[in-house]
């Protein structure tokens, strides 16, 4: 019984995580071929050599974009999560519901909605023109700014929820003890609330950062042709060039890059458990 209980999650991970990863790894070591599927199994590092020989700029750009989105999500999400956690029960459930509400519509539709908001004749530009702050519409679409807006908007709930989870569990008497010992509200935040919510910050940051690095839809729709992110490179290799081995190599490098912060965070969380 014990073995079955312990074995089940391992079996699940093996089938749905390890096996697909192994297949992608195998493809990344194969050669392209005119066949279905379009590769011939092999053991070559050619795909990685090609990758290293070309422009690797999509990686730092992806990491940078995702890192900025993570920081922005944290700055926006922390006060929201704290406010929700400090609200009384009925209102609190309503606020949590609002955080989750966007998930009830498709991501695609929500990203398209930003089109309407950011385009030259969109909501933001018309409002600014009406205010008289600007004379001509601003270029808000098809650039880095639009990608960040899209990422932060889409991933904010993934930051808020784990933060809320930690902050709502915070022992009220700890905050009272801090105040009792002479700490003003901002000091209580800095010396008690922040350090005790580090696990939530780490969890939320990972939940935003990791999918944001590989994001394809948002940069493709809002970023225009000039934005180069790994997700887009993958798409091009896979669908436009039909070079599965090269696409697999791109993916494997990304996996390797992402495992590093994950392991660091894991070690940190274990130490503070």
């Amino acid at each position, binding site marked *: 019984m014990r073995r079955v209980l312990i074995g089940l999650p391992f079996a699940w991970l093996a089938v749905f995580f390890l096996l697909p990863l192994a297949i992608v790894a195998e493809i990344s070591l194969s050669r392209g071929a005119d066949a279905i599927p379009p590769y011939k199994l092999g053991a070559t590092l050619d795909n990685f050599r090609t990758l290293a020989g070309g422009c690797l700029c999509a990686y730092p750009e992806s990491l940078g974009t995702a890192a900025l989105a993570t920081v922005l999500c944290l700055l926006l999400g922390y006060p929201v999560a704290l406010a929700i956690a400090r609200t009384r029960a009925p209102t609190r459930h309503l606020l949590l519901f609002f955080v989750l509400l966007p998930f009830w519509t498709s991501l695609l539709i929500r990203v398209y909605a930003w089109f309407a908001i950011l385009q030259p004749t969109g909501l933001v530009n018309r409002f600014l023109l009406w205010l008289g702050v600007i004379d001509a519409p601003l270029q808000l679409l098809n650039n880095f700014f639009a990608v960040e807006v899209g990422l932060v908007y889409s991933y904010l709930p993934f930051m808020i929820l784990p933060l809320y989870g930690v902050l709502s569990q915070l022992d009220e008497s700890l905050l009272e*003890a801090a*105040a*009792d*010992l*002479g*700490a*003003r509200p901002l000091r209580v935040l800095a010396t008690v609330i922040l350090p005790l919510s580090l696990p939530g910050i780490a969890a939320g940051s990972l939940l935003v950062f990791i999918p944001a690095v590989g994001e394809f839809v948002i940069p493709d729709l809002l970023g225009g042709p000039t934005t180069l992110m790994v997700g887009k490179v993958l798409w091009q290799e896979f669908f436009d060039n039909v070079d599965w081995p090269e696409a697999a190599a791109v993916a494997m490098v990304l996996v390797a890059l992402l495992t590093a912060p994950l392991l660091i965070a894991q070690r940190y969380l274990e130490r503070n458990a």
Partner: protein
Amino acid sequence: MPILEIREATRSFGTTLAVADLSLGVEAGEFFALLGPSGCGKTTLLRMIAGFERPDRGRIVIDGDDVTDTPPYARPVNMMFQSYALFPHLDVAGNIAFGLRQEGMPRARRTERVAEMLALVQMQGFERRRPHELSGGQRQRVALARALAKMPKLLLLDEPLAALDRKLREETRLELTGIQERVGTTFLVVTHDQEEALGMASRVAVMNRGALVQIGRPAEIYERPNSRFVADFVGAVNMFEGEIVAGFNEIELKIPGIERPVPLDEPVDLPAGEGAALAVRPEKLRLSETRPAGIALPATVVSIGYQGGQSIVHLAAGGRTLRAHLPSEAARELIRGVAVWASWEPEDAVVLTR
């Protein structure tokens, strides 16, 4: 001048009146206990003094300063929380130094003070431990050291011994009184445990339903309760309900089941015909085989509970159950079912009109 003065403080939550028009003065250097059943408003009162609750009406004055509108972080009081509320992300030294950091004490002085406090609670060598690495008793000491580190004018202790097991509770009670005498800080303890209050405090205030019922030294509270509530809540008691009658040249209490009315030594503030009660502590009840002179009730021994030094004897007397605490040697001579006479010295009975 009292170190703490509560003037007609009132606080209600919704329709519940937690503290009702309560006034209280605590003198500097006292070990003062607020005693009452759960829900009597004692914790609300403590939280108002700390600044976590604001009174709806009334003022709170500490050492001559009206602090009613002062936030908790600016009040010259510190609190030891029932759950201890130690910061789990800081070690013992960090916890004790927390309040000192807030007031900007230089590092060297801080280290010195932390060492002093650890010595006071006998926790030297535990500086680098985290709270989860400590036992319940050790956590309690750290919480006390942290609350005392800022040398508050008044230390508030919320059920300080409630989280400890019985044996440790007794030791810690002695230690708390010892520490209080050494540092001289005014201690205000909130507790629902009468043994704790009587055993530690120099003065006790009994609270019920948001109001003070009686204030006095522990012996006064126990031996001269001023109401049925205090007599019943503080310690065990045999209560005889009766009716006041005007006797030949004194006031008497007519108690059903006792043939002669009991003469009252003290004047009572009630007219004849009103109800009053006579309270006799179990250890004041005398049991004898032959009828003694004076007031006595015939009774039958129902059970004898051996408790070591003393035994608890339950008796049936008419429709009443009486309780007597006897030295175990004396109780050994009793057997269940035997008929005895229960009596008491007139000065050991207290008349209760409230």
